Every structure is written in structure tokens, then in C-alpha cells.
């Protein structure tokens, strides 16, 4: 037993103390201080009873989590946020994939210009862009503000670049000779697209979906302006944390979202692994 127990950590630590391991230390320190500790504090907050929130004594309670079940408004908001984000992600994919495909097929100069044009809006503050979209909608179709459609349009508008970029990156890496050999082997353009291009770009599509779905589901700004002050899950967290100072409830919602996202990521990784294994 003894040598077995000792030898294992030794083997591990030998691997750790390489030069590359040292390079990663600041990065890992940053992750611990700025991500792990805050998440741990949120976990503590979420189990903290409200009465003692002023002091450092910890009174364990499940109240914050029970509110998910007890308050029907929460379940409704959650379903609404996820539903809207899902549709927005789908729309972004339908628009973003062809866009990325067209860009990847352009001349080098046009490519650079188009990528610049797609990413440039991200340099403008998101709040300002949403407000600007609200103004345009107010001018063109004032009845739309406050509807689900307006929120979906807003999410798609704000997060579309996050769909285009990862897909474009993967598509531009596909070897040109693959297209040629596909047509040599008798595949027409549609068959090439379905059997060669799309399977090879699945990883880009999946990261695009994540990059659009996750922020869409928790966006604060879009429902505030395009939803005419409607509440989605992000606004609920903001309201609990900032307006009411209810850190426990806010933290528990955020952790629940994080849990759902983890499940989502895990599912995506499964699909991703399957496709990666396929082309190796």
C-alpha cells in the first residue's frame, strides 16, 4: 500500500514542475483569486440566512433555493429567458453560418474587410448599440418594442458577431483540396456542403452557439430597452443584488444558471468529442 500511495503524487509533481508549469503560475493564481474565490463566496452567500447578512456569522439556510420552487414567477422567467435565448441563437446560426461561409470564400482583401465590418460594432458599447437599435425600431416599427420579437431581434443583433467569428475561423481552416476532391468524387455543391463542410465546422458552430446562447439568456440590457422594461433572468439577478441588496437570492439564481450552463457545456462537449473522433 505505502509505496503505491507515495509514488503517485511524486509522479504527478514531477510532471508539474516543468518550465511550462512555472509559466502558468500567474494565470492559475489569477483564476483562483478572481474566479474560484468569488464563486466560493457566492456559494456561501446563497446559503446565508438573510437575518445575519450584516455580520460574519454564518447561519445555514436553504431559503434562497426554496424560493425557486415557491415563487412561480421565477420558473416562468427562467423558461422565458431560455426560450428567447434559444430562438435568438437559432436565428444567429441561420444568419451567421452562411455569412461566415461567404466570408471564408472571399478574396483575402475582401475577407479582411468583411471580418472588420462584422467585428467593428463590438467596439461600440453594447448599451449604446441596444439603445440605438431601440431608436431605429421606434422609428420603423414602434409597436414592436416590448414584444418577444423585439427581444429576439435585439439578442441576435448584439451577439451575431460571436456566432460568425468561431464558424469563420473553422471554415477558413478547411483545406481547399477537400472541396476539389469532393467534386472529383462526384459530389455536387450541396452534397459537399452537407457531407464535408458542415461536419468539419461543427466545433465552430458549437462554440458559436455557446457564445450566443449563454450571454443571451442572461442579458440585462436587451430586455430593459427592447423589451420595454420587461424582466428576464438577468434583470432578476440585478434586481436582487443591486436594488434589494439580497445577495443570497441573487447568488443562488446565478449559481443555478451556472449549473444549467455546465450541464449544457457537458452535453456540447459530448457532441464535440464524437465529431472530433470522426475526423481523426
Amino acid at each position, binding site marked *: 500500500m505505502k509505496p503505491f500511495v507515495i509514488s503517485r503524487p511524486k509522479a504527478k509533481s514531477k510532471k508539474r514542475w516543468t518550465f511550462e508549469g512555472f509559466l502558468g503560475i500567474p*494565470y*492559475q493564481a489569477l483564476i483562483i483569486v478572481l474566479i474560484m474565490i468569488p464563486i466560493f463566496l457566492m456559494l456561501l452567500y446563497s446559503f446565508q440566512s438573510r437575518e445575519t447578512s450584516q455580520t460574519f456569522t454564518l447561519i445555514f439556510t436553504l431559503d434562497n433555493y426554496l424560493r425557486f420552487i415557491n415563487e412561480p414567477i421565477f420558473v416562468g422567467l427562467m423558461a422565458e429567458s431560455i426560450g428567447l435565448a434559444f430562438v435568438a441563437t437559432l436565428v444567429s446560426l441561420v444568419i451567421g453560418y452562411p455569412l461566415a461561409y461567404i466570408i471564408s470564400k472571399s478574396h483575402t482583401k475582401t475577407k479582411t474587410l468583411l471580418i472588420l*465590418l462584422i467585428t467593428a*460594432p463590438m467596439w461600440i458599447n453594447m448599451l449604446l*448599440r441596444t439603445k440605438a437599435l431601440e431608436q431605429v425600431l421606434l422609428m420603423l416599427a414602434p409597436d414592436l418594442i416590448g414584444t418577444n420579437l423585439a427581444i429576439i431581434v435585439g439578442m441576435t*443583433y448584439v451577439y451575431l458577431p460571436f456566432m460568425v467569428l468561431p464558424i469563420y475561423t473553422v471554415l477558413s481552416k478547411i483545406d481547399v483540396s477537400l*472541396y476539389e476532391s469532393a467534386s472529383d468524387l462526384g459530389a455536387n455543391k450541396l452534397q459537399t456542403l452537407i457531407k464535408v463542410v458542415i461536419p468539419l465546422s461543427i466545433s465552430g458552430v458549437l462554440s458559436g452557439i455557446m457564445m450566443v446562447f449563454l450571454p443571451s439568456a442572461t442579458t440585462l440590457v436587451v430586455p430593459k430597452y427592447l423589451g420595454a422594461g420587461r424582466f428576464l433572468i438577468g434583470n432578476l439577478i440585478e434586481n436582487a443584488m443591486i436594488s434589494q441588496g439580497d445577495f443570497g437570492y441573487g447568488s443562488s439564481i446565478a449559481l443555478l444558471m451556472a449549473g444549467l450552463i455546465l450541464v449544457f457545456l457537458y452535453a456540447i462537449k459530448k457532441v464535440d468529442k464524437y465529431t472530433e473522433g470522426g475526423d481523426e
Partner: protein
Amino acid sequence: MNKHTLSTKTFLFGILLIIYLPIMSLVIFSFNDSKSLIQFTGFSLEWYVKLFDSSTIMDAVFTTILVAIISTIISTIIGTLGAISLSKNKKG
């Protein structure tokens, strides 16, 4: 490989138009002489004069740029080192 048909050109143009319409409206209404964001009442540089006159805003701009530059440098260095170590560890 590089010839775009009319339909793809229309698609590209349409998407870019939608993306830039709100931004164009921001630009246009920044020259408006009233506070309205819906009705254009006349051309003026009032808001730009106000912007460059306000020491608070200009200070904020410089602070923003400074903070952005420093944080970009730091995160590039730490991120690159972290990425190198992560990619090497994975192989080992």
C-alpha cells in the same frame, strides 16, 4: 472560389445594412441640435463641443484608455503564458 453571385452579394449587403443601420442613426443623431433621437431638427456640433469642453468626460476618456492599455498588456502576457503552459501540460 472567389466569385460572389448576386444573391450572396445581396445577402451580405442586407446583413451589413441591418448591422450598421442603428450605428448610422447614432452617428446622424449625434449631429442633431435637439436632444431628440427620433426627430432630426437641425444640424449642429453642440454635443461635440460639450464633449470636448467637459473636463469630466475628457478625464474619463483618458482614464479609460489608460486602464484599457494596461489591462490589455497584463492580460496578453498572463494569458499567453497560461495558454503555453496549458497546451504543454495537455500533451504530457
